[in-house]
């Protein structure tokens, strides 16, 4: 991020909220990875590290009653929408105290109280479902907005094309956030996608499409703000393509042999969060001790969540058949 001040930047309070969200994501992610590496926990983990700026950039425009839909790589979206850290950790560790009683796991985190409505493990599947949230808001005349997150790879599945078209035709209050980290699993975007920018596709459905540097918090904030405002005022959906990078490959344990080493090194060297931190200080939005205080508070929050989750019991066995239907049907 440039070191000069930005006339287009949000106010200090918003900037600090964005910093706080990003710092939470980074701290939680680092703890998951260290616990995985040390063997303290075993779970399938899709690190969102490198992409946290995107979630912070849209989340500060949302109200608690707005909806978010996300994917298996969703920790950043979960945290940004305000899913409580304790229950989030407990769900990741499969504990009975988790957001979903340990039944869903990291790929299916759900916390309606925070507006985190669906996390799916099926590529692209969240897109049509988000339309349903948008339709419900439209039908009931609320001005709730739905943000649905997905990857660049998801832009090649039928659900994306059907979903965007329907959203445009019905002018649904949905913001489509394509978190373009340049890879779908082990395949670089250029090998699977016929256009250079996913945002180009918006035109074919009749909605605005915009590509933004998803690692630039101010730019991301601005673009997301316009799309959320458009949705909220009934003008319809927007496709945002936020360009970014996944620092840790597809999932933990990925050998990343298909990612050029230099490319990854450069992306990590340009880590958006430390750059944002330095920018906040250089431009007088915060001083060192304020940011350090936020970081300490977040460290304590994550410590507490880890304690809570690791000391929580597994779900009781009598949960096996509950929640399949309203009543128990074996």
């Amino acid at each position, binding site marked *: 991020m440039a070191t000069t001040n930005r006339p287009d930047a949000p106010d200090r309070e918003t900037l600090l909220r964005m910093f706080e969200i990003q710092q939470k994501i980074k701290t939680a992610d680092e703890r998951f990875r260290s616990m995985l590496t040390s063997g303290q926990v*075993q*779970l*399938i983990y899709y690190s969102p590290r490198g992409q946290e700026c995107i979630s912070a950039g849209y989340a500060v425009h949302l109200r608690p009653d707005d909806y978010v839909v996300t994917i298996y790589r969703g920790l950043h979206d979960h945290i940004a929408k305000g899913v409580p850290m304790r229950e989030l950790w407990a769900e990741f560790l*499969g*504990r*009975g105290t988790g957001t*979903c*009683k*340990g*039944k*869903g*796991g*990291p*790929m*299916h985190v759900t916390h309606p109280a925070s507006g985190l409505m669906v996390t*799916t*493990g*099926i*590529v*692209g*599947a969240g897109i049509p479902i988000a339309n349903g949230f948008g339709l419900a808001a439209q039908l009931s005349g609320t001005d709730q907005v739905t943000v649905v997150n997905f990857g660049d*790879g*998801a832009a*090649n*599945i*039928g*659900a994306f094309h059907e979903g965007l078209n329907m959203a445009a035709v019905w002018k649904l209050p949905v913001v489509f956030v394509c978190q373009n980290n340049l890879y*779908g*699993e*082990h*395949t670089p975007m250029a*090998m*699977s*996608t016929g256009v250079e920018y996913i945002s180009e596709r918006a035109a074919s459905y009749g909605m605005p499409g915009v590509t933004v540097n998803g690692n630039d918090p101010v730019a991301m904030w601005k673009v997301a703000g316009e799309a959320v405002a458009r949705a909220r005022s009934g003008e319809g959906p927007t496709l945002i393509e936020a360009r970014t990078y996944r620092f840790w490959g*597809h999932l933990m344990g990925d*050998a990343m*042999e*298909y990612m050029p080493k230099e490319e990854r090194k450069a992306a990590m060297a340009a880590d958006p969060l430390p750059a944002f931190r330095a920018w906040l200080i250089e431009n007088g939005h915060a001083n060192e001790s304020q940011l350090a205080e936020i970081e300490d508070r977040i460290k304590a929050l994550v410590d507490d969540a880890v304690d809570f989750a690791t000391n929580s019991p*597994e*779900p009781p*066995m009598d*949960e*096996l*058949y509950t929640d*399949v239907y309203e009543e128990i*049907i*074996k």
Partner: protein
Amino acid sequence: MTTTEPRIMPMGMAINEAMDVAMGLDEKVFLLGEDIAEPSGGVYKITKGLSTKYGTQRVRKTPISEAAIIGAAVGAAIAGYKPVAEIMIMDFIGVCLDQITNHAAKIRYMSGGQTTVPMVIRTSAGAGRGFGAQHSELLEAFAVHSPGMKVAIPSNPADAKGLLISSIFDADPVLFVEPMLMYWDPAYAGEVPAGDHRVPLGKANTVVEGKDVSIVSYGRQVHTCKQAAEALAAEGISAEVIDLRSIVPYDEAAVMASVTKTKRAVVVHEAVTRCGFGAELSSRIHEELFGTLAAPVQRVGGKNIPIPYASNLEKAFLPQVDDVVAAVKRTNK
């Protein structure tokens, strides 16, 4: 004198070898699927090396587009190719179910036999990995319920190779289900014949001989059944374990002969019990051998729930050795 080392390998390698052999034998065989080409060679490394050996025309990496993958395989198969399409994990079949049940399965019949669809859909499946409800299911029953589709599910590396080569050269579409936990686990490694080793579809394998009860299974659960047979032997019950290898077609003659001998049967699979293949098999045994049976056929399968994430619940979902032993005892009351 030359001695040849036994070729012990994990199932993942045997499946790779099957595709290698088939591609070497017939230029019409080609592979398509997400991430299957080098450098990664598939997310589970099952197609490792094949794009280097046969080129990216024949080992084609696809966009994440399951309906387009299976649709392209259907078209190419009708046009004379022998596509082997990979659906990374079986749960994703939901995305392309139309292409499978309405097209791959029905086209031979709807065209009055003018067009046929000789293709394979390879897919990995199975719970026990903490992957949650959308990455763990065995869904073979839907294909069994789609006349026109064949279904094979190997339980060991040699069968995986032999059944896959047979499936690739079969005249009809085959859903080939690979138990994911068996891919690279050395505990499931086994000897695999070199070259063009084929195991026909529809030919069961009696993996344990016995006289008191027939336990019929397929896929990874065959191992659960073998362990159950050992436990039962210790209690003086002699169990026969039959590995079906393919369930459409399945070796009905072998099943009926065994149950005629033992008069008792337990059917076991990982898929949810309700309307699983075990329900069909149990019905068929009752229809054919009602008068011979000493007890009703018992079913053991996954619980009738979405697969839970928490490890204690996930374990409770899966059929365990004790469940098979208990089912056998229910036939002995």
